[in-house]
C-alpha cells in the first residue's frame, strides 16, 4: 500500500477504518531515530493505511491521532460524534 501524501486524508481514512471494525484494527507506530523517520500504520489486515514523515512538526499530529485512537479503544462504544479532526 502506498503512503498517504497528506496528513488530513490519512487521519480521516484511519479513523474511518477504525470505526468500521474496532476489534480488527491495529495501529502501529514505528520510530527510527538513526534515520530520523516516523511511520504510522493503521490496518485491519485487509486495508492498510500508512503515513510516513521525517518532519518534527508532524510528531505532534501523529501523537495526537495515536492518543485519540487509544481513547476510542478504551471508550465503551465507539461513537462517530467525537471523531471530528481539527
Amino acid at each position, binding site marked *: 500500500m502506498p503512503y498517504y501524501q497528506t496528513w488530513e486524508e490519512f487521519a480521516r481514512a484511519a479513523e474511518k477504518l477504525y470505526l468500521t471494525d*474496532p*476489534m480488527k*484494527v*491495529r*495501529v*502501529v*507506530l*514505528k*520510530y*527510527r*531515530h*538513526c534515520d*530520523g*523517520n*516516523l511511520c504510522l500504520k493503521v490496518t485491519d489486515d485487509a486495508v492498510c493505511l500508512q503515513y510516513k*514523515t*521525517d*518532519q*518534527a*512538526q*508532524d*510528531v*505532534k499530529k501523529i*501523537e495526537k491521532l*495515536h*492518543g485519540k*485512537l*487509544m*481513547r476510542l*479503544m*478504551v*471508550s*465503551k*462504544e465507539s461513537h462517530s460524534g467525537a471523531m471530528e479532526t481539527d
Partner: protein
Amino acid sequence: MVLLENDAFLTELTRLFQKCRTTGSVVITLKKYDGRTKPVPRKGHPETHEAADNKCLVRASDGKSKISTVVTSKEVIKFQMAYSNLLRAHMDGLKKKDKKSKGKKTKAT
C-alpha cells in the same frame, strides 16, 4: 512477551527508546482488547467469554524484546498524559521545518 503494569511499561518504553537511539527502530502497536484469551468458539458452541469492551492493548518492541500493557478506561487519562510526554520527548530525531535544514538532520533542542 512481558505483560507489565502501566507505569512499568512506560519505564521500559523509555529504556527501549534510549536503546534504539543509535540503531534500530521502536515499534508501538495499539489494539482494542476485550479480555479474550481463548479463540472465538465455533458455531454451536456457547459463548462463555464475557467481552469487556473497554480495554486497549499497547505493545512495544525493538525487534528483539517485547513489552506490553493493558490500559483500561480508568487509567487511560493518566497513562496517556505520561505516554504522550514520553513520545514527544523521545521522538526528537526528526527534521525541523524544512526551510533551513533540507536533507540535513538538525539537533533537537
